[in-house]
């Protein structure tokens, strides 16, 4: 058995483990299981005496085999690992549709107050009046910004919010004897979660083609509407970064046909405080607190996806929700008449509610509108600066919070969109969103958010221009070999999927498996 650079026995069950520790700033960090062992621990706990155990003969007999680290070892392992990540605090994420904005640390500090972090979801309601007030305040802000009648706070993420919104629509139609409505209209440019959500609830999905200008044609919607259509799921501003100019007419046509308008609110950052979706005729819309209201992405969650609801859908909101009662605020935890029940245990993402409300209070109504305007200003600035070099598929309208380009400038260069995006890594930027929306061939979607300064935007645009010129000049290797300065070169995703290795195996286990 070999020894690792911590001087502990190392497993050889995984392939290609680098024997060096990397350079000082780009560490190669062994796996936790290659550093730690089952004896070491970073937590001091007394060894309890149990005189009369009540485990009923169900005691563990198989070994846990969990590696432990002392505190200094753990600190170093996770700090070293962290340095292999790009993050919004270290550089720009021009990721379209993802709204990677600054995450204020006041939010984090507030979420850790014991009065928020150390309260139990099932302790008596009389002992958590401050928490219920906070939920009420957040609801007020969300309903005011959207001009809607109700909000369901509990969804755990945007896709969960979509699910809830569509469940509310289904519940409303079932209650109205409209259960035959089995079709959901989804524009081609939609996020993948939209058709997945509709299908999850048993709806069949009917695709609405985009117009050549990137927007949805009200006539195409009218043609697709029928007495069997339950709803349309429309993103506005849409995934091409455009505000749907006919959205009010679309809403009217949908309502006239007895269907509901589900709005995907992933792009609400472009219009918060400037346009109220309720004024456009939406019936339900989820709001990603981790996009629009600055709660951290955390390397892929946790998110939060509250859903605002129109008056028509409000009675179908899930439990729990907060209501004014005779003794202060109360929490309604059980099904009312037609409501759809409960979509998660407890009260949802309280930790995210605290962060989002902290952000809203910091910005104020005026600041949120300014942030939306700055986000749109930044996207249009990128579009203006790069429009000369990169082709703009939909030039007819000003863009909203994101600028969409296509990869036609790469034709004949031997460089793919993916290659181009990977080259951005070597320049210190996260790649933009690629190949989405699907309606544009070789799409490159850039969302700067309001958090980026003009200086950063200029540097980003300079880099983009320089890369484009270099690609056209025939320096394909810079792109096809990229990234070269990242902690890893390009990873073999095919190999990962073809013969999945999804956990670390002790060397002996590997040997046995090979027999």
């Amino acid at each position, binding site marked *: 058995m070999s020894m690792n650079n911590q001087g502990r026995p190392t497993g050889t069950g995984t392939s290609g483990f680098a024997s060096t520790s990397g350079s000082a700033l780009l560490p190669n960090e062994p796996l936790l299981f290659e550093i730690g062992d089952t004896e070491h621990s970073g937590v001091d706990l007394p060894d309890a005496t149990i005189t009369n155990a009540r485990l009923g003969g169900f005691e563990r007999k198989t070994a846990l085999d969990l590696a432990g680290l002392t505190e200094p070892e753990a600190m170093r392992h996770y700090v070293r690992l962290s340095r292999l990540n790009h993050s919004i605090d*270290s550089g720009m994420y021009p990721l379209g549709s993802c709204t990677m904005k600054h995450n204020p640390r006041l939010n984090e500090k507030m979420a850790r107050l014991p009065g928020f972090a150390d309260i139990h979801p099932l302790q008596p309601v009389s002992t958590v009046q401050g928490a219920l007030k906070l939920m009420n305040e957040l609801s007020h802000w969300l309903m005011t910004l959207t001009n809607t009648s109700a909000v369901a706070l509990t969804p755990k993420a945007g896709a969960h919010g979509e699910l809830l919104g569509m469940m509310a629509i289904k519940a409303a139609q079932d209650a109205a004897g409209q259960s035959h409505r089995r079709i959901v209209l989804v524009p081609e440019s939609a996020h993948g979660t939209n058709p997945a959500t509709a299908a999850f609830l048993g709806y069949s999905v009917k695709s609405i083609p985009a117009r050549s200008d990137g927007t949805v044609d009200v006539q195409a919607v009218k043609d697709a509407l029928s007495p069997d259509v339950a709803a349309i799921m429309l993103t506005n501003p849409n995934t091409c970064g455009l505000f749907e100019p006919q959205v009010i007419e679309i809403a009217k046509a949908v309502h006239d046909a007895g269907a509901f308008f589900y709005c995907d609110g992933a792009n609400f950052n472009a219009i918060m405080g400037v346009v109220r979706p309720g004024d456009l005729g939406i019936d339900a819309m989820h709001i990603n607190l981790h996009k629009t209201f600055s709660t951290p992405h955390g*390397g892929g969650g946790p998110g939060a996806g509250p859903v605002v609801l129109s008056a028509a859908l409000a009675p179908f909101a899930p439990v729990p929700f907060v209501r004014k009662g005779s003794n202060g605020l109360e929490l309604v935890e059980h099904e009312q008449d037609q409501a759809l029940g409960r979509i998660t245990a407890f009260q949802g993402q309280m930790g995210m509610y605290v962060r989002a409300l902290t952000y809203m209070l910091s910005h104020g109504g005026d600041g949120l509108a300014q942030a939306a305007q*700055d986000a749109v200003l930044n996207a249009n600035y990128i579009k203006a600066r790069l429009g000369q070099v990169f082709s703009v598929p939909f030039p007819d309208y000003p863009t909203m919070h994101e600028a969409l380009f296509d990869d036609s400038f790469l034709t004949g260069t031997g460089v793919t969109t993916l290659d181009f995006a990977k080259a951005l890594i070597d320049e210190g930027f996260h790649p933009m969103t690629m190949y989405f929306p699907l309606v544009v061939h070789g799409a490159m979607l850039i969302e700067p958010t309001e958090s980026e300064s003009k200086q950063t935007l200029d540097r980003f645009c300079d880099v983009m221009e320089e890369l484009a010129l270099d690609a056209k000049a025939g320096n394909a290797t810079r792109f096809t070999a990229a990234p070269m300065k990242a902690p890893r070169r390009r990873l073999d995703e095919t190999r990962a999927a073809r013969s999945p290795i999804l956990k670390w195996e002790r060397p002996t286990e590997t040997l046995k498996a090979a027999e």
Partner: protein
Amino acid sequence: MRYLPHSEAERADMLGVIGVPNVDALFSAVPAQALKSFDLGLPAHSPEFLVEAHMRALAGQNHAGSDGPFFVGAGAYRHHVPATVDHLIQRSEWLTAYTPYQPEISQGTLQMLFEFQTQVAKLTGMDVANASLYDGSTGTAEAVLMARRLTKRNKIVLSGGLHPHYRDVVRAYLKDDADLECLSASPEGQGDILDHIDDQTAAIVVQTPDFYGHLRNIKAAADAAHAKGALLIVVITEVVSLGLLEAPGALGADIVVAEGQSIGNALNFGGPYLGLLATRKEFIRQMPGRICGETVDAEGQRGFVLTLSTREQHIRREKATSNICTNSGLCALAFSIHMALLGEAGFTRLARLNHANACKLADALESVPGVEVLNKTFFNEMTIRTPQPAAALIERLARRGILGGVPVSRLEPKDHSVGNLIVLAATELTTDEDIAALSSALAEELA
């Protein structure tokens, strides 16, 4: 506005480059009647110290766990989180990173997820685990749907010991589904689920320790399910129990779902939490959620990527296994760091400490006149029957500064047989003084 970098001069410069007179021109696609046709009436922006004062005032109106004796459990548990965990998860590179879709610059998150998956697989005794789901309740609903896909059968039976919120979530996910059978509450730990398995059954769902704290016989449930070609889904809301109790994988479980909050994550009034899902190797292509896998880079160095994404919504759209798009990344990180700090030695001691304190609690409650402990078996949680309605009793205890558990009626309002039942938990944070305070307060209230 401290979060917005532009000066007015810079805004003007940028508008000049764009070639529009003002920012309103950029909103020209918005129908005129919808554009700023309103006064929001929301407060204006505010300095940090004023926002902080407002939030502190709200937080101050809540009774925090550290304010007094605390016995609330029922699916969320108050454990100690080492300072190292919270420090590390607030590092910029963890906190403010995006989903690791660009693996070359996300190896920190990806390696952590690989380690996390390994930890979860070892804990549950299963072959593979995913990179986490929202929480235990939605994870249970996902597991039920996964079992249907795997067996191509529809009938699902939920044990009467399943957390009522989890049952309600499965009900909402399977709305109006005649093939969902929810057995009535079983506070005495009585089990009749084995009689409900037939050759149409896709899966049975059994929680252990169950909602009322009883330990369930997983081996018997697995054997009975498998005899009819059905799957066994095991649900665990207190993951610390796995430090003392046999791994469900070793007893025949097909899918294990757990709430991971107890390790590394604060109570947070119910979220964000952490759904764990583990299963057999042969089922991975029907497993929902993100999965991280090992591979190599162009230079042959070990590296990690998100993999098997052909199951997922962004590739498969309406044919995806689930609409799920995110995991609970930062909560998984907190779990993984805390579990690494514990290691096998620490995790076992933690579990022993929980059980020891629960034994002390049970013995103390047993000695309170009028109180009956319903459990013969438990890990760190138990159910008592009191001579008075439980909800009012818990409220009176709260007024004495003691959070004495959860009245079952709060979760089962329609079931009048549970009106006098309280579910209570002890953890490593429970002291002998806390137990003495609860016992004497209960004795006084019931006198």
